[in-house]
């Protein structure tokens, strides 16, 4: 397309300038702007509002179980989104659950990235038996459907917040490692790497100064595509009762616990369901746009 040729032909500009224009290009498209706005609201709710919830999210009031959302005060207080089976305020739990779900994703993605990036760069650059062994491990891991692997790891590690982060990092790093390794393998042969070697640069220096900056945009794109995947996996595991354990709420767990209420109280699973869809939608909109701007070659590549 004509647009992309123009971008490539653009003269090299100062670094900060380039960053500003990348950000502008992200926000210029409607999908990028909507995604960014949606995400800003959700982050504000998850990491701001969740600390000043209207009620204590754990406070039970068995006098008003499964109260529907309403503006009218019941039992001495307004429960905007109603109450759950134990009379706990759904809005308060939703905000805290949002914080937990976002927090898990924002912990898992950087950790998987760091692990996959480190392993991929070193094995791709060095080669040898370690490369062969680790890549066979990556192949094997990518041969098990991700959720099935996660379930098997949960069976060993157990459930809970830290365990779930570990499970999702274990399931997440091979996707990065495979892509980074392929790039490092190609970059090793490029002129600038050979030149750096010729003037006596150490391997560590070449990796840090020449390989890393060149794989970073790709990794950033993979990371943004990985975020919604992690959100869904955590929610799925918590939904099944294999993830975040009560009393700590998470969005998936709230849906799971409301599963049996579909006949009496359809709004109970619907409220966290809508929120989780919005979270994934925001990450998808923004992720697609970031990919198109930063690394159009990855278009069509599925999630990690």
């Amino acid at each position, binding site marked *: 397309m004509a647009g992309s040729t123009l971008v490539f032909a653009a003269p090299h500009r100062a670094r900060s300038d380039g960053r500003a224009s990348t950000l502008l290009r992200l926000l210029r498209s409607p999908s990028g702007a909507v995604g960014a706005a949606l995400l800003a609201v959700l982050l504000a709710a998850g990491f701001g509002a969740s600390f000043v919830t209207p009620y204590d999210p754990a406070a039970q009031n068995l006098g008003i179980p499964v109260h529907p959302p309403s503006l009218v005060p019941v039992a001495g207080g307004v429960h905007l989104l109603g109450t759950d089976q134990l009379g706990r305020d759904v809005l308060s739990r939703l905000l805290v659950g949002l914080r937990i779900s976002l927090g898990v994703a924002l912990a898992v993605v950087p950790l998987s990235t760091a692990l996959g990036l480190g392993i991929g760069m070193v094995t791709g650059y060095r080669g040898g038996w370690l490369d062969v062994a680790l890549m*066979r*491990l990556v*192949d*094997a*891991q990518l*041969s*098990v*459907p*991700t*959720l*099935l*692997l996660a*379930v*098997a*790891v*949960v*069976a*060993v*590690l157990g459930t809970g917040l830290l365990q779930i982060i570990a499970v999702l990092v274990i399931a997440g790093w091979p996707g990065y490692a495979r892509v980074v390794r392929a790039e490092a393998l190609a970059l090793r042969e490029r002129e600038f790497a050979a030149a750096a070697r010729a003037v006596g640069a150490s391997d560590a220096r070449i990796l840090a100064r020449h390989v890393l900056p060149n794989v970073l945009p790709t990794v950033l794109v993979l990371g943004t595509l990985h975020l*919604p995947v992690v959100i*869904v996996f955590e*929610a*799925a595991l918590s*939904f*099944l*009762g*294999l993830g975040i354990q009560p009393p700590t709420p998470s969005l*998936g767990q709230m*849906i*799971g616990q409301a*599963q049996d209420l*579909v*006949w009496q109280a*359809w709004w109970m*699973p*619907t409220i966290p*369901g809508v929120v*989780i*869809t919005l979270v*994934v*939608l925001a990450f*998808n*909109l923004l992720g697609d746009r970031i990919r198109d701007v930063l690394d159009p070659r990855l278009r*069509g590549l*599925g999630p990690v």
Partner: protein
Amino acid sequence: MSEYAIRRVAFSLTAMLGVITIVFVLLHVSGDPATLLVTQDATRQDMERIRQAYGLDRPLAVQYGRFIARVARGDLGYSYRQGVPVTELIAGHIGATFELALASLAVAIVLGVAFGTVAAVRRGSSIDAAAMAVALLGTSMPSFWLGLLLIIVFGVKLGWLPVSGYGGLDHLILPAFVLGGFYAAQVSRLTRTSLLEVLAQDYIRTGRAKGLRGRVVLFKHALRNAALPILTVLGLSFGQMLGGAIVVESIFAWPGMGRLAVQAVLGRDFPVVQGAAIIGAAVFLTVNLTVDLVYGWVDPRLRGAAQGA
């Protein structure tokens, strides 16, 4: 067999060996594997019996070798909850999962290709925008939430369809739409992109110029050439559906392998979890191997590409 096929089969076998190794490591990483293999109320004697029965008192290398040999013989151990061989248990559940996956694949193909084709042909219209908005929503909706939503609408409010269990075709509809829906969304986006690329080619213009009807151009020339990337994604999706089945089967109480695995984890029945992971990987690898071999046969260009990788 061609060199390509041999390489591809060898890759699958090494990956399978890797999976078995991962399962073996998982069993040992938690410390004492005997604790994973017994129920919580097991006595000291039970543990000792397990250790001896499974050779857990032998050196790790010996255990690893024996483990591989056992799995290769098709022995996946016994379920502690049900007291039957794991292979028997899985054999009783895998059929339902295949049934669900095939139905979901059909949903993904029919819905995905139809939506994507309409969107591409009417590019830029409101139909295109609507179809792509639905597709984006479809990829953003976790399956368990879509499942509950469909249960609320078609089961609770309208009362049209059964919402759980295994039975006739009516029991299959909701789970298949939930599992297939996500992939239908992906396929429709891909069909649109792929078809738009093909529709811009010279031979399409030639076809139109020589007076072929629009329908002939679309179905005979355009869709056929746009099909390859779609087939690739469908092949991969079929394998991934085994993972997705874990959630969907749990929602709809569908008696398949996914539900079996979840209940095994909740019930601390580790041999079953282990067996499900091994069989799941074997099926996934076999499906992907078949898909790749078929492509190599359909499109000879791919053989060279795979060799270079």
